[in-house]
């Protein structure tokens, strides 16, 4: 980057909110993805105006711009592969408005998902999208990746709660989409176009979301299944019975052993799967639902079924799931968390294939799943310094993607495409879809400066 341009960019935000110090560039060269690349400059804007001024300069000069929240995304979305500017949105962290009467809220992109949830809870409201990274993920990041979470099955994903956005386009123009009204069909749905676009179409600087009343109670049930297919059948039967759990999580044999070795919770290590089911709603209706679920689980050959009597017991049951990723991660230096997703009816088959792939490539792979939506999280363990192992990991991941697609699924249920899966995109999108995608990108970002090297 030319000095002249750098000076001009720094002048927009002032020297305290700009840096090109080597160690800062290192800190912004990475996210949980394995590849890294140094940016030339990191800027911390505080307003839509500042972002717009930055984009005008970047557009004029053709400089790449990669927006970033907390950098917890899992597919390399925020690695600045082509250098240029990292726009760190973390300091734009104000909750601008919570309107409890109309159940809408306006926030800046740097607000942390968890902190937002805590705030709206004070009004008896809930914002359902809660990715596992909710304690650090920003609202802007969850819009960029259209995040889901364990509650997706019942409540949907980020996209389903967006009412409007303020977006700075590649040329610095400010686009306002949607509004505070819950229903709005005026024009193309630009809000949803931006949601999940991973910063490739514009920089989100303000977000309007809708909120829902917080369910008054919840109950948790755990079931241990000696055979994998019985657990999938149970999942299908629960949903078939008209029950929509707020959480339906599966841990496979490998994960169960890792958790048990790490946390000693007394989990059975001789079963294929453990299911954790949470239902929420009015306390009056929940008991009947829990009884129904227990019966279905037993009918589907669960060996043990445990319903938590109170919140404390429920918390205990969830500890196993919460410690799963750490327990696995501690086994080896690196862990890749994939998110191939298949139609629910193919869940068992997909887990089986994943287990076979692990054997074939001699890798440790454990499977967690949001079972209700067929969303798998294979945890692949390795040491990135072992080149041979790294190659096997890459081959295995590709095979997992292929398996998911052949079972009618998708490359990514919730983590996104980023750089990790960009080359696989044509496997899922056909000629026409790819071409439409490219044309949308070209019309909004003709100079390809927005998060280049990702997605399209």
């Amino acid at each position: 980057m030319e000095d002249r341009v750098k000076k001009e960019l720094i002048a927009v935000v002032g020297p305290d909110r700009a840096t090109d110090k080597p160690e800062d560039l290192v800190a912004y060269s990475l996210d949980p993805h394995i590849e890294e690349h140094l940016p030339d400059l990191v800027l911390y804007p505080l307003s839509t105006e500042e972002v717009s001024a930055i984009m005008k300069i970047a557009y004029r000069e053709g400089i790449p711009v990669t927006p970033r929240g907390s950098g917890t995304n899992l597919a390399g979305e925020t690695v600045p592969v082509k250098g240029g500017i990292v726009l760190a949105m973390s300091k734009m962290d104000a909750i601008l408005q919570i309107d409890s009467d109309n159940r809408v809220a306006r926030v800046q992109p740097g607000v942390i998902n968890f902190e937002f949830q805590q705030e709206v809870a004070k009004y008896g409201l809930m914002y359902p999208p809660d990715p596992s990274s909710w304690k650090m993920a920003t609202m802007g990041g969850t819009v960029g990746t259209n995040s889901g979470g364990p509650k997706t099955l019942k409540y949907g994903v980020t996209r389903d709660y967006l009412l409007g956005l303020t977006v700075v386009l590649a040329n610095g123009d400010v686009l306002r989409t949607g509004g505070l009204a819950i229903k709005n069909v005026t024009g193309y749905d630009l809000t949803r176009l931006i949601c999940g676009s991973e910063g490739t179409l514009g920089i989100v600087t303000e977000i309007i979301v809708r909120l829902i009343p917080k369910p008054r109670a919840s109950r948790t049930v755990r079931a241990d299944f000696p055979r994998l297919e019985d657990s999938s059948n149970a999942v299908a039967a629960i949903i078939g019975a008209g029950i929509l759990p707020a959480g339906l999580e599966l841990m496979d044999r490998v994960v169960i052993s890792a958790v048990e070795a790490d946390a000693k919770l007394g989990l059975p290590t001789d079963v294929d799967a453990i299911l954790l089911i949470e239902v929420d709603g009015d306390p009056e209706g929940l008991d009947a639902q829990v009884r129904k679920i227990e019966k279905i689980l037993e009918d589907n050959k669960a060996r043990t079924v445990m319903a938590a009597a109170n919140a404390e017991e429920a918390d205990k049951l969830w500890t196993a799931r919460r410690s799963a990723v750490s327990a696995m991660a501690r086994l080896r230096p690196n862990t890749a968390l994939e998110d191939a997703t298949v139609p629910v009816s193919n869940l068992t088959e997909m887990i089986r294939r994943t287990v076979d792939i692990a054997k074939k490539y001699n890798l440790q792979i454990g499977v967690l799943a949001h079972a209700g939506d067929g969303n798998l999280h294979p945890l692949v363990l390795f040491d990135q310094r072992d080149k041979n192992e790294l190659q096997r990991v890459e081959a295995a991941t590709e095979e997992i993607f292929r398996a998911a697609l052949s079972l009618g699924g998708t490359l990514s249920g919730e983590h996104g495409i980023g750089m990790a899966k960009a080359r696989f995109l044509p496997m899922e999108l056909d000629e026409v879809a790819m071409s439409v995608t490219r044309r949308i990108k070209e019309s909004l970002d003709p100079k390809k400066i927005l998060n280049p090297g990702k997605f399209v």
Partner: protein
Amino acid sequence: MFAEAIKEDLYSCLKCAMCQPVCPTYRVMRMERYAPRGRVQMVKKYLEGDLSITKSLQEALMSCILCEACAQACPSGVRLDRVFENMRMELHETLGPKFAKKALFAALQDPLLMRLGAGIARVGSRMIVAPLNIEWKLGNIPLNRLPVFNRSSFRSRVGEIVPAKGARVGRVLYFTGCATDLINEDVGRAVVKVLTSLGLEVLVPRDQVCCSVPIFLSGARREALPNVQKNLDILDRTDVDAIVVDCATCGGGLKKAVPHLMEDLGLDTEKAHRVASKIKDVSEVVVEYLEELPIERKTKESPLTVTYHDPCHMVRSMKVSTPPRQLLAAMDDVRFVEMAGADQCCGGAGSFQFEHVEISAGVTSRKTANIRATGAQTVATGCPGCRLTLTGNLLKTGDPTVVHTLQLLAERLRA
């Protein structure tokens, strides 16, 4: 020198940022430079030769409070505390300490010099600061809120052997730390009073020296060795049931950081571990006798509302959080209220608050807000550093006073 075993931890970092939301400096600054993940990756890149030691890199690493919240949160078991301790040594050995720190280290290393300094400071604060009532500040603390030094060393006055009251049930060694010795003799007296009234004989070796945690955590690990070894020689004895501390920093240091230091420097760790296994916060010793506590059993019409602040080095390095709360619960005329984020750093961290004023102020303001929200009249804690920071920042009318938990207990002992 960077210990080989700790280098390996850097390759376990998943770059997941689960350490980020718990980091007090990141919460204030919202920049990766001030986040544990950013710092760990800087260390990794330095060791791989991609970064060199500069003032700016030093600032990124030294603006960390070493509160250990990140190490506790890391899913991958990265020992961030030890990574940072090793890196600070690298920085220190390349760049050297700042002048002010040099003077402080010199004082902490030499008991005579320290007593001299304390004497001057005592006179200074009485003759200059107090009468003028000036609003000058050191960091975020108004000068007139800084503690006044003891008239003379607490250790030199208490005696080396304080006999148990009544029948002797055991013997403990009291490691007083500099703060109690030179500033907070009120705490020292409370500790001795409570322990002896439980039937414990209390040994207070006069020649114990500064734990040197402030020295070696700033990177001057080699410089701290003479003091560290001297203390280990004094403390390593078989005829005491426990080594009692009233300061979370001394405690965390002796229990955890000293063994780490010895190990990282490739020295014999046996003695350090032996001593470490005996280190107990005074509250841990006292709760063992909870049933027999000779405490006033009277309820008051209007109980004293007390909240408790967990010092970083107590809750994380020493893993002590329940005993002080049990003690508060045992006091009939105390109503205990838990504050939000009780285990979050107060932002003081010794000299940190004077060197990183902006970050420290941000961290402290969260703490004081949480304290005020409880409506407590008193904050109890177990660290002279936290006490200094909280006293210096709870300045509004109606703000609670700050004391050591043992002081509250000592006041309630039956005569």
